[in-house]
């Protein structure tokens, strides 16, 4: 009995180790022949990480799909070839680092960082140590970049020179929201509901609060929820209603936001609603009653209803390939790949260069004053050497189920 157990355990261990080694071997082989089909050994290897399974899967899948479309389009052009590999991290810092190491084994030359903020903070440290260029589509905390002063003006994390962002930073959004509300005089009594188990949501709220105080905006009530209690918002809404709030600021993602809208509607509470880029996607929710989102205002760099050719083509391809409407995560990922492509071409990066050489060239190109990029999420976008992107958030309002500029 005992002997058997031990023997079985040992056999299991040996087979596992065997499969592991075999797995490593086969992965390095397959990378040479190319997974994407049109990739070849002369293609520049781009690695992406994000939650493809688990509760945050929607963001990872959007980035994966958006980036893949860009890679396919670029490869058809025939000059610089790309190859994309995307690994799952389940929105977990530990698994994100594991995924990053796996990509390094594959021979990744340029990285898309990680999709969600907390995992990306962990991965960005590794990326910087290994000197690989990374442009994250969506990890929006300033801790991802490093080198940013905190509330007291102290820099606790040194700038990670290889990290750049495609999305707005959280403080940027919080400040922009407060300024926007003040300038357009959208509300006198503001209530906030935010997710205090989420770095993105809390990050925006903290800056919003500071800026609101500075501008003399009146926050009458600030209530929180967590991922574990993202079902029932009646008590938060009741509180906002009792406080007489006429503007509800929701720095949260659209899934809980859709529930807040539905519950406010049932309570017959109708404040003006102002939100940030996480709200984008609410109109594409399967079976969502769009009348609930009527007059919702949001700051977002991308809308799937925009009429320019670039957006329309992208949305069309996305729908054909993935039977879904792209959200801003997909758009940011698409832009990331194109920005890397343009910078790589300008800096004459080729696929046979080492990741470290590519990193130096791309950093120089991205931070150079004459490099600008126009894509789905903004025109003439540029980057400073802090890694932050400079693009203007557009104020949008939902009218009759579509976005209209404010």
């Amino acid at each position: 009995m005992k002997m058997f157990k031990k023997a079985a355990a040992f056999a299991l261990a040996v087979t596992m180790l065997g499969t592991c080694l075999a797995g490593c071997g086969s992965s390095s082989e397959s990378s040479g022949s190319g997974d994407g089909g049109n990739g070849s050994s002369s293609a520049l290897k781009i690695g992406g990480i994000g939650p493809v399974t688990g509760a945050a899967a929607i963001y990872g899948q959007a980035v994966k799909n958006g980036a893949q479309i860009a890679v396919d389009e670029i490869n058809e052009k025939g000059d610089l070839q790309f190859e994309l590999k995307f690994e799952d991290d389940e929105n977990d810092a530990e698994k994100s680092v594991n995924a990053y190491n796996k990509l390094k084994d594959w021979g990744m030359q340029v990285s898309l960082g990680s999709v969600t903020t907390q995992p990306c903070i962990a991965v960005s440290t590794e990326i910087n140590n290994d000197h690989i260029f990374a442009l994250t589509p969506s990890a929006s905390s300033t801790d991802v970049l490093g080198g940013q002063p905190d509330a007291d003006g102290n820099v606790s994390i040194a700038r990670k020179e290889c990290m750049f962002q495609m999305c707005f930073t959280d403080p940027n959004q919080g400040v922009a929201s407060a300024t926007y509300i003040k300038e357009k005089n959208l509300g006198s009594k503001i209530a906030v509901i935010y997710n205090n188990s989420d770095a993105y949501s809390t990050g925006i709220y903290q800056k919003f609060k500071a800026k609101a105080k500075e501008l003399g905006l009146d926050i009458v009530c600030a209530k929180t929820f967590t991922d574990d209690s993202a079902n029932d918002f009646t008590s938060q809404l009741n509180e906002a209603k009792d406080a007489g709030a006429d503007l509800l600021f929701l720095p949260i993602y659209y899934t809980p936001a859709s529930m807040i809208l539905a519950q406010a509607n049932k309570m017959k509470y109708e404040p003006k609603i102002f939100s940030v880029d996480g709200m984008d996607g609410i109109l594409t929710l399967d079976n969502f009653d769009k009348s609930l989102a009527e007059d919702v205002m949001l700051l977002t760099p991308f809308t799937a209803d925009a009429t320019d050719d670039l957006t329309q083509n992208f949305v069309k391809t996305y729908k054909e390939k993935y039977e879904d409407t792209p959200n801003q995560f997909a758009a940011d990922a698409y832009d990331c790949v194109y920005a890397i492509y343009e910078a790589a071409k300008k800096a004459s990066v080729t696929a046979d260069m080492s990741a470290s050489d590519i990193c130096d060239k791309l950093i120089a190109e991205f931070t150079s004053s004459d490099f600008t990029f126009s894509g789905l999420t903004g025109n003439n976008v540029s980057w400073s050497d802090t890694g932050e992107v400079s693009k203007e958030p557009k104020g949008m309002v939902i009218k009759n189920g579509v976005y209209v500029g404010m």
Partner: protein
Amino acid sequence: MNMTLVSNLINGISLGSVYAIIALGYTMVYGIAKMLNFAHGDVIMVGAYMCFCSMTYLSLPPIVSILIAMVVCTLLGVIVEVLAYRPLRKASSLAVLITAIGVSYLLQNAALLIWGSAPKTFSSVVPFGSVSLFNGDLIITGESIVTVAACVVIMICLTVFTKKSRMGKAMRAVSEDKDAAQLMGINVNKTIAITFAIGSALAAIAGVLLCSAYPALTPTTGSMPGIKAFTAAVFGGIGSIPGAMIGGVLLGVIEIFSKSYISSELADAIVFGVLIVVLLVKPTGLLGKKITEKV
């Protein structure tokens, strides 16, 4: 009278009623098979998806959709019982617990592959809207009314069923002593399978009601309500049907009240804190049976 207080109370009871229906499934299975079926929360999710699909894609009326969801969940419950849990009947309870967790992962990831990660907006199955009282100072949603009513009806039916019917008596016998019940000619495996069937059908109803009130449906929709309902079942005394009901409603009310009047940040900690205090005072829950020790 403060209408916000009343409104919070009603919302708490409504949320608690959903917990209660889920908790009934936990409690029945625990009472009879003596196992913590951690996959129960995910059966809720499957039920909600089935109802969503038949309503949205097949345009079937809500009642038919609910029935379809119940049938599918019943089958799912029985299949899982026969394939995964029955072989482990004599194994340690921990082995069964881990298997149940495996089933939970399996259901979640299968749902992710089938329905994708994007949330689906569930259309309410309740045909009427909100009721407005006291010049609109107090608003009660249709979903709250239906949920509370469903919870009460289900509890009464289950109590009568276990007390009066032949099958119900068999269930109680199995829960008292499996071996003795077998000696008395009761088919233990069949009884346990039927318990799973009932529990899973209830899970389907709970899923539909949960998503009618809170309409974003994702593959992980069932996990947190599942854990909270499990807490509710223990709160009321696991194995006891009225206990599950009381536990669920109390948990819902405590959750909403602590969010409103104490701290929305620490609401979860408060809910679990109350649970701990209750268990320290009454170690087998509010209505749990006293365990007599065999020496």
